[in-house]
C-alpha cells in the first residue's frame, strides 16, 4: 500500500438556510480511488470548483469523508486518535501566502510546527536551519514575512511544513496568486525536495507547465477523477482537456495541431526541444514534405 490511499472517497457540503434546514447538498468529491506511492511527484489538475482542493484537504485530515475512507501511512483519517500523526506525515501548503504565515519573523514561523510537535528547543533550531536552506530562504531568516515577495513567502510556508519532517507534502494551488517568477521559484523548490529528499509531493494546480515533470497526473472534474496517467499520456488528449476547462502547454497544442494537419508527429510532445527534434527528423526524411505536397 502506498503512502496515501483513498477508497471510494466521497464528500458532501451541506448548505443550510438561516433556520438550519438543509437547502442543498453539493457532492464535491464523488467516488475517488487513489493510491499514491512514497517518493512520487503527483499532480492533481482540475478547473476551479472541480473538487481538487476538497480532495486535498482529506489527505491532511482537515476534512473527513462522508463516504469511503482515506488512509495515510496505513492510518485511517477518520480515527480521531491518529489525526496529529497524519498531519505530521502529510504536511500542507495553501494558496494564499499571507494567510498561512503565523510568525512575525521568518525563522519563528518555520519553528511553529516543530513547537506544536513538542520538539526540544535545540532540535527546533536545527530543523529551522535545514528547512530554510532546503528552500533557499536561509539568508532571510531574520526578515519580517511582510517584506518578502509572494514566491518567497510560499517558500517560507514550504519550509514551515518540511520542519515537521513530513513524508509527504500536499500543495493546494501554491502558485495561483504568484507572478511567473514566483511560480518558477516555488516549483523549483518543490521539485528539489522531491528529488533530493525523496518527499512525496502532491501538487494541486491548474497550470499545465507545472505538471510536466510529475510522475503521475490525475485530472478531476465534477468531483471525480476523469483522467489519470503520465503527463505525456494526459497531454496527448488535447480535446478532452479543453472540454474539462483546462489548457495544454502551447507547444503541445502546436504539435497536436500539426499532427491534425497530417504531420506524423508522436503524441504528447511536452517541451520545445522535443518538438524541434521531431520536426528536424521530418525535415531530413522528407516525410512532412510528402504530406504537404500531397494535400
Amino acid at each position, binding site marked *: 500500500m502506498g503512502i496515501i490511499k483513498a477508497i471510494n472517497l466521497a464528500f458532501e457540503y451541506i448548505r443550510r438556510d438561516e433556520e438550519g434546514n438543509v437547502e442543498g447538498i453539493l457532492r464535491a468529491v464523488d467516488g475517488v480511488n487513489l493510491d499514491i506511492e512514497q517518493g512520487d511527484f503527483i499532480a492533481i489538475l482540475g478547473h476551479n470548483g472541480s473538487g481538487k482542493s476538497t480532495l486535498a484537504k482529506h489527505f491532511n485530515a482537515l476534512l473527513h469523508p462522508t463516504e469511503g475512507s482515506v488512509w495515510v501511512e496505513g492510518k485511517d483519517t477518520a480515527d480521531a486518535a491518529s489525526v496529529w500523526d497524519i498531519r505530521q506525515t502529510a504536511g500542507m501548503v495553501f494558496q494564499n501566502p499571507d494567510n498561512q504565515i503565523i510568525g512575525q519573523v521568518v525563522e519563528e514561523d518555520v519553528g511553529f510546527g516543530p513547537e506544536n510537535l513538542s520538539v526540544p528547543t535545540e532540535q527546533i533550531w536545527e530543523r529551522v536551519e535545514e528547512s530554510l536552506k532546503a528552500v533557499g530562504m536561509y539568508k532571510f531568516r531574520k526578515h519580517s514575512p511582510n517584506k518578502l515577495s509572494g514566491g518567497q513567502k510560499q517558500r517560507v510556508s514550504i519550509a514551515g511544513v518540511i520542519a515537521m519532517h513530513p513524508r509527504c507534502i500536499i500543495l493546494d494551488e501554491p502558485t495561483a496568486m504568484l507572478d511567473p517568477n514566483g511560480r518558477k521559484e516555488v516549483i523549483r523548490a518543490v521539485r528539489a525536495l522531491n528529488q533530493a529528499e525523496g518527499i512525496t509531493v502532491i501538487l494541486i494546480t491548474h497550470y499545465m507547465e507545472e505538471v510536466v515533470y510529475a510522475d503521475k497526473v490525475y485530472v478531476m472534474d465534477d468531483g471525480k477523477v476523469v483522467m489519470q496517467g503520465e503527463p505525456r499520456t494526459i497531454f496527448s488528449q488535447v480535446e478532452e482537456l479543453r472540454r474539462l476547462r483546462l489548457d495544454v502547454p502551447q507547444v503541445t497544442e502546436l504539435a497536436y495541431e500539426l499532427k491534425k*494537419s497530417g504531420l506524423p508527429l508522436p503524441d504528447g510532445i511536452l517541451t*520545445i526541444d522535443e518538438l524541434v527534434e521531431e520536426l528536424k527528423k521530418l525535415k531530413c526524411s522528407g516525410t512532412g514534405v510528402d504530406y504537404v505536397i500531397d494535400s
Partner: protein
Amino acid sequence: MSLILDHVNYIYGEDTSMAVAALRDVNLVMGDGEFIGLIGHTGSGKSTLVQQLNGLLAPTSGSVYFNGNDIGDKDYNRKELRSKVGLVFQYPEHQLFEVTVFEDVCFGPKNLGLSPKEVELRAYEALKQVGISDEQFYQSPFELSGGQKRRVAIAGVLAMKPDILILDEPTAGLDPKGRDEILGQIRKLKEETGMTIILVSHSMEDVAEYVDRIIVMNQGSVIFDGLPREVFRHYDELEKIGLAAPQMTYVMNRLQQEGFSVNADAITIEEAKQEILKSLKRG
C-alpha cells in the same frame, strides 16, 4: 480621448529614509481606441503607473494630461476624471459590498449624481456587457462563482461609462477557461464600444493575442513599447528581466536557428502552424 504622461516620476515615501523610486521618467501617449497590454512583473511599477492615470496618485514630478488638461491642476475635477478613466483593481471582487449584484453596480453611477433612472439604465447595460444574465441581478454577489463576481466588479466600473478602461490583472486566480472567458469578454467589449482598453498583466502569453500594443515596464521605466511582434523580438532581454515571451516565439526562433525558413514573428498557434507547414513544403 487621450492620456499623456510627460516625464512622470514617482517616489514612495519621499521624505523617509526608505524612499523607493516606483516610476522613472515615464513618457507615454495612450488613447484613441487602442488595446494596450501593460506588462511587467510584481514591483515593476505598472500598478503605480495606472494609479497615476486616474489621479489616485499624483506624480512626484512631471504631469499627466487627459484630453489636453493637466489632471494635477488644483481646480481639475478629479472625480469626473475617475468616471472617464475607469480603473478595475486586481481581485476586484474583493470590493463588492452591496446586498444584490444590481445595487452594487449602481454604486459608481450613483456617485456621479445621475438620476435614479439613468443609474439603473447604466447598471443594466453594464451587466449585459459583461454577460451577466437577468436571473443573477438580484442575487447576492457573494453567491456567485469567482469568475462571475469578477464580471460584476468590472460592470461596476463600466457603469460609469468610461472612455478608457484599465484592468489590473483581470485574470489573476482564474482557471484557464475562466481566463479565456474574461479576456474574450473584454475583447468583445472593445469591439462593441471602441473604448480604449489597457490590460495590466505579468503574462505576455495571456495578452499577446488580444492587444495591438505592448508596453513593457521594468524597475519603474518603460523599456519596450510597440506592436506585440516587435516587442517579442527582444525575447532574450525579456527573459533577462524575468518576463517570458509567448512559447511560440521560442519555438519559431529555435526552428529558425535550426535552419527552418520560418518567420519568427508568429505569436499564435495558428500562425506558427502555418509557418511550419509552409517551411516543410518548401523543403
